[in-house]
């Protein structure tokens, strides 16, 4: 995992609640055995019609949102299936940050494991950020994990909370399994004391 300290980039807005992981990456793309290459299938059934042509009505097909690295979206984003392919698809498509009033638990964890920031802000703050995005020309934002602040399109700063352990791992690009294996003695001792040796 590569370290990530701060992201400055274009913002896309998907103002819908309860976007489930079946929409983020439909099941027909879960049969691959690789971790990469899912970006092309992101939101497939919303982005494309049956012939593979882009649906102009879908928010993320707006020209102003092309190349976005930050996604603003509604509450309970990533609910449903545990498929980590949802995080892989967003990241592979170019998103480093998703900001929402709440997330599905498993999606949020999956994002963190891959160095993608799933940031929770109060609903009114997310709405204000959305309102500040210029829908005609597009907007940029900065998300600074080190300082734990978002600099909105209007230059205003919003602080955000972030799990300290996940933050440390993402800032430094650390391999979580290697970190855990440093505690191997504790795991072995647990097994011994619980009849699991």
């Amino acid at each position, binding site marked *: 995992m590569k370290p990530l300290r701060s992201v400055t980039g274009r913002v896309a807005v998907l103002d819908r*609640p309860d976007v489930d992981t079946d929409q983020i990456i439909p099941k027909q793309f*879960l049969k691959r055995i690789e971790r990469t290459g899912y970006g092309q299938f992101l939101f497939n*059934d919303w982005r494309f019609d049956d012939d593979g042509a882009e649906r102009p009505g879908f928010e993320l097909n707006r020209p102003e949102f092309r190349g976005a690295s930050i996604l603003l979206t*509604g509450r309970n984003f990533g609910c449903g299936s*545990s498929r980590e392919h949802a995080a892989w698809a967003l990241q592979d498509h170019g998103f480093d940050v998703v900001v929402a009033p709440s997330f599905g*638990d*498993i999606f949020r964890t*999956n994002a963190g494991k891959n160095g993608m920031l799933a940031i929770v802000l109060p609903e009114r703050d997310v709405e204000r950020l959305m309102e500040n995005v210029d829908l005609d020309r597009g907007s940029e934002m900065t998300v600074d994990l080190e300082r734990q602040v978002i600099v909105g399109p209007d230059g205003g700063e919003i602080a955000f909370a972030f799990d300290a352990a996940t933050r440390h791992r993402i800032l430094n690009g650390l391999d979580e399994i290697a970190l855990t294996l440093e505690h191997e003695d504790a*795991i072995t001792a647990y097994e011994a004391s619980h009849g699991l040796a």
Partner: protein
Amino acid sequence: MPKTLFEKVWERHVVFEEPDGPALLYVDLHLVHEVTSAQAFEGLRLAGRDVRRPDLTVATMDHNVPTLPGPITDPMAKAQLDALRANTAEFGVRLHATGSGHEGIVHVIGPELGLTQPGKTIVCGDSHTSTHGAFGALAFGIGTSEVEHVLATQTLYQQRPRTMRLELAGQLPPGLTAKDMILGAIGRVGVDGGVGYVVEYAGDAVRALSMEQRMTICNMSIEWGARAGMIAPDDTTFAYLEGREHAPAGRDWEQAVEDWRTLPSDPDAAYDTVAVIDVGELAPQVTWGTNPGMVVPVTGSVPDPASLDDPDARLAAERALAYMDLRPGQRIEDIRVDRVFIGSCTNSRIEDLRAAAAVVAGRRVDPGVTALVVPGSAQIRRQAEDEGLDRVFLDAGFEWRLAGCSMCLGMNPDILSPGERCASTSNRNFEGRQGRGGRTHLVSPQMAAAAALHGRFVDVRTLDREPVPA
């Protein structure tokens, strides 16, 4: 200090806990299937790591497998199943492969083999792992990175969740099932009502349920966002487990039961949130929209989005009606169905099949409907055949399939065509879940069976008064 069931199970599994940080939890049982494991095994290989406890790891094939006999024809599905076979062989993990006689949906075979037990921590790369909480286990779904972490370390980092006690009070009326209870509850609390919580389902209505029905309830915990759902173990739990292949036996059994009896929440234990829902007034539930919280009684009608105060909810309802091709005010009993699916980790156990068969017996599937019954495991399939349930379904015009996830998520050949409408006993009615453009209505096994006979939703409580279809 009094403790909840969750707290007791959690505390037994903490390897260490940093102040204000996550705890490292030991995992007693890791269930593995083909869709979310290949990248995890590959990660181990790249890092030169082993599976720490292959003896606590069990794999099965379920999501991709065809439910008709014969070789698998989808090359990508085949590659994924082949990868699971090779990975489990390389790392020494037990695999209940297709054709072994022990295969089935991962959340069906864990309990049926006696692997799922009270007080255990159980994880799987599948959100419906919450099913196993029905036994008083702490069980939840994880992503593939976490699958790799558990394979390598047999542990998982977890932030301590909040706790909720959801009391399902009263007596469930005749003709209703656990499916109606949980759909009714989700309709009440919303699809994000449980985010951040481990929920303990309690109350008289829960105590009265069989293990199969308790699994249906816990299975759908994730559908309202809960990290896990749990039900305190009791004599019903122990009676289900005793004698199963991996359950303790003899003196070990007695000791285990003695220990399990200490797990239920202490009378004065405190929860972060407490809620009560009376199930005594429930009617059979049918979803009308594109998430499980969009649900009404079968006696009701499709809601009017204009009546919703919250603008987000209004917009979501409008989108759902457009996708589902329904009108506000349309009576649920006037909605016709093209397909019926009885199966999935929510409702494919022997009791579900018996209940559906009791509705079907001596009747015929509507000529406009294609109806499938997909047992949750090879063992259930055999048991159902021993009881003659297969004949009941086949004689009525249902298809009787091999075990697997089948049409719950359509990663195999069992999918809806665009525009087709399905009465389904599965757990998710998300857009495209059962096939692109397919329209899913979630119901109980009895309600699905009744819909198959009539070609539309009917109230299973009044089935005998419905005109018998020709």
